[in-house]
C-alpha cells in the first residue's frame, strides 16, 4: 500500500475545485505540515513509551503497565498531565529569551522534515541542498539550548547550555565530514538523489568497504552527541547539573524540550537511514515501511547506547572529537575521494 496515491488524489481534488494555483500550493503545504506534525507527535509519543519499555527490558523490569495495554497510552497521559502543569517563569529570568527557547527548539526539530523522504515520493519538498539544509537547521537546536541556559538565570542551566554549545561545536565538523564522504559518491545534495543512488542492497553506503562503515560509525557517534544522549548527555546530566538547561522549565515548555529531544533522535536516525542504509529502498514492502523499519532500527541503537554506557566528562568529550574523530573523518573523506576517483566499489 503506497501512501503517495492518497496524497496525489487529495491534491487533484484540491486542483479540481478551481481555486488559484498559489492557494492550492499553500493549502497543500500547510496541510502537509500539519500532517507531519501529527505523525511526529505520534512517533515521539511512541518513542518515549518504547524507550521506557526498552529500558525496562534491559533492566529486568516491567516498565509502564497500568495505563492502557502494557502502558501504551502512558505517554499520552504524561502529555495531558503536562498541559495541566503550572508554568513557572522565575522572577530573575530573562522573560523573552526564556519564553522563546522551547519554541525555537521545537521548530528547529520540526523544520527539518521539509526534506526528509519518508518514502518514494513522500517528501514535502525535495530541496536541491537537502542534506546541507538539514545539517544547518539541526544546529539551531543548540541556540535554543543556549537561550534556555542563559534565560533561566540559573547557574546549572547556564553550565548546561554552555556544555551543549561546546558539544555541538565539536561534533558538528566530524558529522559534516562523514556526510561529505557520502556526497562525494552521490554527487548531489538532494535527499532523493541520495536514496536513489543506493537502489540495491550492495549499493548502500554502509557496505561500501572500507570508507562506508567508518563514515557510518563517525556519523552515529556525532549524532549521539548532537542529540545530547548518553554517553554524551552532558547538557542535562542529571547527576551533575540536576537537570541542566531545562532545570527551570515546567509544564508545556518542558514538554516542548522533551518532544524536540525525541524528534531529534528520530531525525538523526532518519538521516542515518537515508545516507547509509538506503532510505526507503527495499523489496516487497511499501517504501515508507522500509524507511520506518530502518529508522527505528537506528533509534534502537541510540537507546541501546543510553542504557549501557556511563557518561563522559566534558573535556574528554571535546578531546575525543578533536583528537580522534576529526582526523579520522578527514582521512576517511580523502579515502572516499580516492575510491570514487579510482572506481573501487563504484557499482
Amino acid at each position: 500500500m503506497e501512501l503517495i496515491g492518497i496524497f496525489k488524489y487529495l491534491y487533484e481534488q484540491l486542483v479540481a475545485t478551481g481555486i488559484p494555483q498559489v492557494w492550492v500550493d499553500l493549502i497543500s503545504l500547510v496541510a502537509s505540515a500539519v500532517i507531519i506534525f501529527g505523525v511526529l507527535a505520534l512517533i515521539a509519543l511512541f518513542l518515549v513509551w518504547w524507550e521506557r519499555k526498552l529500558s525496562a527490558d534491559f533492566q529486568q523490569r516491567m516498565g509502564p503497565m497500568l495505563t492502557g495495554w502494557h502502558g501504551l497510552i502512558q505517554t499520552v497521559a504524561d502529555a495531558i498531565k503536562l498541559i495541566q502543569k503550572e508554568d513557572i517563569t522565575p522572577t530573575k529570568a530573562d522573560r523573552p529569551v526564556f519564553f522563546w527557547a522551547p519554541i525555537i527548539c521545537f521548530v528547529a526539530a520540526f523544520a527539518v522534515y521539509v526534506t526528509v523522504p519518508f518514502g518514494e515520493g513522500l517528501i514535502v519538498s525535495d530541496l536541491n541542498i537537502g542534506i546541507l539544509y538539514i545539517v544547518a537547521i539541526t544546529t539551531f537546536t543548540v541556540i535554543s539550548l543556549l537561550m534556555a541556559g542563559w534565560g533561566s538565570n540559573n547557574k546549572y542551566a547556564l553550565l548546561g547550555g554552555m556544555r551543549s554549545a561546546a558539544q555541538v561545536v565539536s561534533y558538528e565538523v566530524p558529522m559534516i565530514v562523514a556526510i561529505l564522504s557520502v556526497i562525494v559518491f552521490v554527487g548531489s545534495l538532494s535527499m532523493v538523489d541520495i536514496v536513489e543512488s543506493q537502489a540495491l542492497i550492495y549499493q548502500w553506503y554502509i557496505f561500501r568497504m572500507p570508507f562506508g562503515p567508518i563514515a557510518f560509525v563517525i556519523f552515529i557517534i556525532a549524532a549521539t552527541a548532537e542529540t545530547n544522549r548518553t554517553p554524551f548527555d552532558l547538557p542535562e546530566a542529571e547527576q551533575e547539573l540536576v537537570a541542566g538547561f531545562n532545570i527551570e522549565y515546567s509544564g508545556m515548555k518542558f514538554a516542548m524540550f522533551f518532544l524536540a529531544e525525541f524528534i531529534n533522535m528520530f531525525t538523526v536516525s532518519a538521516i542515518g537511514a537515508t545516507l547509509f542504509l538506503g532510505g526507503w529502498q527495499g523489496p516487497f514492502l511499501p517504501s515508507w515501511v522500509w524507511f520506518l523499519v530502518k529508522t527505528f532500527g537506528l533509534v534502537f541503537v541510540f537507546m541501546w547506547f543510553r542504557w549501557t554506557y556511563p557518561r563522559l566528562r566534558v573535556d574528554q568529550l571535546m578531546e575525543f572529537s578533536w583528537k580522534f574523530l576529526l582526523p579520522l573523518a578527514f582521512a576517511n573523506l580523502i579515502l572516499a575521494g580516492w575510491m570514487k576517483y579510482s572506481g573501487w566499489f563504484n557499482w
Partner: protein
Amino acid sequence: MGIIKKVPVYAEKFPGGGIITTSLNYIFSQSQASSLWYLLFGTACCAIELMATGASRYDFDRFGMIFRASPRQSDLIIAAGTITKKMAPRLKLLHDQMAEPRYVIAMGGCTVGGGPFYYDSYAVEKGIDHIVPVDVYIPGCPPRPESLFEGCLKLQEKVKLQKIQDWS
C-alpha cells in the same frame, strides 16, 4: 488562568453539557493520576527503600511514576527520611518551587511524626505536616516497598476524585 473552572458552569446550560464536564474531568484527573513524576528527594533510611522501590523487583515505572531531579517538573514529593530542623526550610522551599498541582507523601515514621526521634532529639522536626501539606502518610521505619505502593495508589485515588471546578 484557570478558565477550565468555568467549564461546568457554562457547559451545563446546554443539553448534554454534563457529559463534556465529566469526560474532561475524567481525562484530566485520570492522566494526572497515572503520571505522577516524583522528585528525587531522600534524606535517610527511607531513601534506600525508595531506591529499592524504583528498582527491578518493585518497579515504580509500572504506575507511570518516574523520577525527575528538578522540582519544576515533578508532581509529587516523597519525603523519604528524617527531616531535621536544618532541613525543614529547604523542604518547604522545594515544595514551593514545584509546579502546581503538587502532592506530598510523608514516607516513614520520622516524617509522619518524628518516629524514633520523637523523644530526646533536639534536631528532628516532629512530623512534616506543619511544614508542607501532606496528602498521604505512610508509617513504618522504614516502610516496605509494598506499603509505599499502597500509599501511591491511595494518592492516585485521591487525585482521581478531583473535580475541575475546584482547581486553583
